[in-house]
């Protein structure tokens, strides 16, 4: 039944200009960034040619681009996820889902699957930019693949956060602001703490970059996969609980 919700969500996403506009604007910004880094790399390459074990295209073009994709996702995920539940509540269509008897968990899962699908498309198209350089050079396919996997997991975590924020309000803008604030806190937590002279393994573990960076460097570690899975599970459970509580408390 989550599939029915997901398919409907997906259809609705692309029937509105928001998803198209976000996709187009995001890819345009990333394409421009990609061209700039590529130009920089081409300017440097004669000097790099003389160095032993010099960094290649993957380090100097693909890696900065993948980091830029992550930064853009921090903003785009709340914008797209803000309407997931708050929008349904605002327009009165949540009653349709709640009265169908499918249950809060399936509603939340359906929304999550659809939004993750959208972000998977965005990430694949972004990673296709450095991958297209394969016609003239030899990208590190392993690192591109782990980067792609890391960004998809990262996007899934941000989507789940956006859905959770959306489940607690009927104002879509409030949902977006809360999700963005949470994303930024998780993004800057570790760097901020270090800047203040606090070095804590726990804070380091909580921070998003701690777990994304290994993927971008070609390392797939269970601890990082579990971290993203935990964020998804906690956020989606919160969203489902909130919907159930609404039924109980009104």
């Amino acid at each position, binding site marked *: 039944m989550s599939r029915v919700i997901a398919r409907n969500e997906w259809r609705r996403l692309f029937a509105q200009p928001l998803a198209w506009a976000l996709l187009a604007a995001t890819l345009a910004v990333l394409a421009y960034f990609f061209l700039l880094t590529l130009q920089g790399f081409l300017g440097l390459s004669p000097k790099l040619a003389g160095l032993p074990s010099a960094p290649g295209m993957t380090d100097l073009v693909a890696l900065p681009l993948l980091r830029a994709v992550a930064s853009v996702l921090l903003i785009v995920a709340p914008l797209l996820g803000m309407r997931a539940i708050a929008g349904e509540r605002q327009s009165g269509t949540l009653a349709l889902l709640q009265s169908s*008897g499918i249950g809060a968990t399936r509603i939340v899962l359906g929304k999550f699957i659809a939004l993750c699908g959208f972000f998977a498309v965005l990430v694949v198209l972004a990673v296709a930019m450095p991958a297209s350089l394969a016609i003239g050079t030899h990208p590190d396919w392993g690192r591109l693949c782990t980067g792609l996997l890391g960004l998809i997991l990262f996007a899934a975590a941000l989507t789940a956060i956006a859905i959770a924020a959306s489940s607690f309000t009927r104002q879509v803008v409030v949902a977006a602001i809360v999700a963005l604030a949470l994303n930024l806190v998780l993004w800057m937590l570790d760097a901020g703490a270090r800047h203040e002279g606090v070095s804590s393994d726990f804070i380091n573990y909580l921070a998003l970059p701690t777990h994304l960076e290994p993927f971008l460097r070609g390392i797939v570690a269970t601890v990082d996969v579990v971290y993203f899975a935990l964020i998804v599970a906690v956020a989606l459970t919160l969203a489902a609980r909130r919907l159930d509580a609404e039924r109980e408390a009104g």
Partner: protein
Amino acid sequence: MSATPILQLQGATRRMAGRTIIDGVTLALDLGCVLGLLGVNGAGKSTTLRMIAGVLAPSAGRVLFDGRDLHEEPDLARRLGYLPETPPLYAELRVDEYLMFCARLHGLRAADARKAVDRAIERCGLGEVGRRLCGNLSKGYTQRTGIAQAIVHDPDLIVLDEPASGLDPVQAASIRELVRELGRERAVILSTHLLHDVTACCTRVAILHGGRLRHDGAVADLAGDNAHGTSLEKVFFRIAIGDDAQAAA
């Protein structure tokens, strides 16, 4: 017809933010019955319907669907169609796409859902607007699409919250005719504050006031200004104004 009523409310109570909105409502409804739920604004009609539809859980008491607790078995809601006060339409979907989603949401397989959508479109007179976006529909077609989503999966119980509100007299009459027709095979609950809606298409009437069920009986018993002085209008005003007058005194 089964011996168990299709719907039973047993002391259903709903409290919200410390206030009792619905207070111990008990009623039963069989298939083939159209129940008009009357009440002034704030009487608790919409909250009662939301409890019946499974959108809200009762704070106390039970809502039984075909003898089983709707709160404990939410899947039962698939045999129920609900039109809230604001039709729950997705503005960006076409009417046929939207109804297809509603049919699938209630567990119909794709092929069955397609046939069910065609039937609902025909029954609700939506043929002309089947491929139009829900957001571009007139008020009349919006209400009709709302009713179509409530009946598309052929439910046993249909719950309609003010389906004719804001419609012109011709559109309202056609909605009443549709409700009468639906009530021949199924159970229908129709919330309204228009007495005419009840006399025109209901077989039973229940009057809510201050969250309590104050009257429950056959519409035929309250037909016209009968010898006992118990016309629907008199009973309704006695309950609605009488209480307010008492409260003022």
